[in-house]
């Protein structure tokens, strides 16, 4: 199995619900807590497995705001795992999930240096590295109803911009949708082969813009219009 996420950049509205759901679930999960420093102070900071950034793509008038959630890509060639000296970081043979054994980590930050995607954050309170677990403590939990055995971020997304599944199965929802909508990998030139895929925004019709009229009569009209206050 090759478990991972598909994120639809067309429908993501940047509401941060996934990040909050993630923090809520995982702070009490197997790699919790996700410590905060100065949560009520001037500059609150802390560990998040999932962060949403916002970009402007394209040039006016054909520009667009793209909300960009990022978490661990559970890379196939995960250098974060190979560089880890203690063996705390590992990639699971059976489903490809990349995890950190909290009892073995010595907090050297080396894996965070090796990750291009900023997916790893040191818990400065506990001195160990934390990262997305793909909700390994949810997706196999037989006490949960079957349709809830999904990562917290996927379940909570109000605009259905997140999909979870097995990329090894060519007929899974994630495989089909990333095939049909040209799911992209981030920074493929790094060679990490990230599993998570990003669906590009759908093509929009060209935006019509008002072009200034240069004919003298309408110029005078414009000028009069500006003079006369209604």
């Amino acid at each position, binding site marked *: 199995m090759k478990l991972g996420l598909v994120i639809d950049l067309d429908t993501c509205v940047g509401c941060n619900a996934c990040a909050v759901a993630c923090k809520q679930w995982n702070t009490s999960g197997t790699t919790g807590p996700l410590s905060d420093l100065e949560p009520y102070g001037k500059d609150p900071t802390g560990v998040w497995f999932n962060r949403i950034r*916002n970009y402007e793509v394209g040039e006016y008038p054909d520009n667009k705001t793209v909300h960009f959630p990022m978490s661990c890509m559970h890379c196939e060639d995960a*250098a974060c795992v190979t560089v880890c*000296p*203690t063996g705390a970081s590992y990639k699971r043979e059976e489903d490809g999930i990349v995890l950190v054994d909290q009892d*073995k980590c010595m907090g050297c930050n080396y894996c*965070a240096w090796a990750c291009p995607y900023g997916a790893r954050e040191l818990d400065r309170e506990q001195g160990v590295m934390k990262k997305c677990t793909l909700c390994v403590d949810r997706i196999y939990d037989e006490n949960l109803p079957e349709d809830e055995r999904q990562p917290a971020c996927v379940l909570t997304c109000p605009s259905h911009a997140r999909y979870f599944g097995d990329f090894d199965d060519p007929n899974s929802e994630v495989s089909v949708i990333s095939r049909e909508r040209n799911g992209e990998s*981030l920074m493929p030139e790094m060679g990490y082969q990230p599993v998570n895929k*990003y669906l*590009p925004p759908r093509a929009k019709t060209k935006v019509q813009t008002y072009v200034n009229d240069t004919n003298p009569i309408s110029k005078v009209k414009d000028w009069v219009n500006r003079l006369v206050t209604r």
Partner: protein
Amino acid sequence: MHPAFSVIFFTVTSGAGYGLFAITALYQALAAQQVMSPVQVLVSCAIALFLITIGLISSTFHLANPKNAWRAFSRVRTSWLAREGLLAILFYPIAAGYLYLVWQDMQGAVMNATAILAAVWAVVTIFSTGMIYACLKTIRQWNNALTPVNYIMLGVMLGSIIFVIIASIGEGMSQGVITTSAYLIAIAAVSKLVYFFWIGAPAGSTINTATSFTNNMVRLLDVGHTAGTFLTDEFGFEVARTRLLALRWMVAVFAFVVPALMVWLSLASGPVTIAYVVALLSAFGGVLTERWLFFAEARHVVNLYHGSQQC
């Protein structure tokens, strides 16, 4: 990259220690005429081991969870950090064996073989320190062949300066030792200057490949966090261009030019010991600055997600 003082101090100090040990042992094994008495060799190696040890101890200060540091040798098969740790630890018994033979005043093949083994081991250990950084594809300023070369050459250069100081106190001092250190300073200087030149050209990942929008302009609107995060603290470190340039000049002057002048003074039959103490102080400061710059100039690709257009 955020320059952590413990790591800077560790790489410079233990690099100098390994360099000193390697040169001392190599001179013993290969030189036609001995420049150090056995006592001087013992002192030299003791100083080297002292430098190595305080360096290694300082390196543990940047661990957030040092109680698990003993596990750091588990992934020798894939991790350069684990390899470096293992090589550094195994160096101690080898060094002890060599020192025992020096103590016994042994001569001949066994002695020479042990000396060469210790010297090679020391250099390989510095190499693996360099590879810790050079193997990271995420930082293009580090991900090149000159990184380990610089680590080795600067360590050996500092070591050779200390070696001359110790040798100059005894009887067997020769001009050859000084010229050797001159060559080492020259090679170290050239490899570092080429490195500065090499990392200058922008290349590698851009905000476009990072976000997959390769046909369009991409601009950060909002980074999504109000205060700094672990990522911005660790990777967001940035220094003004002019300051970097000034520091590069400082490296060139203190690490290479001043020591070269001191070598010249020594060759012109000046007081060798004093000249080389000045050279050492200057070079040590210069190489510390060099190591600080090595971190400060490194741009991790995660900065692309925080708005950098290119790394």
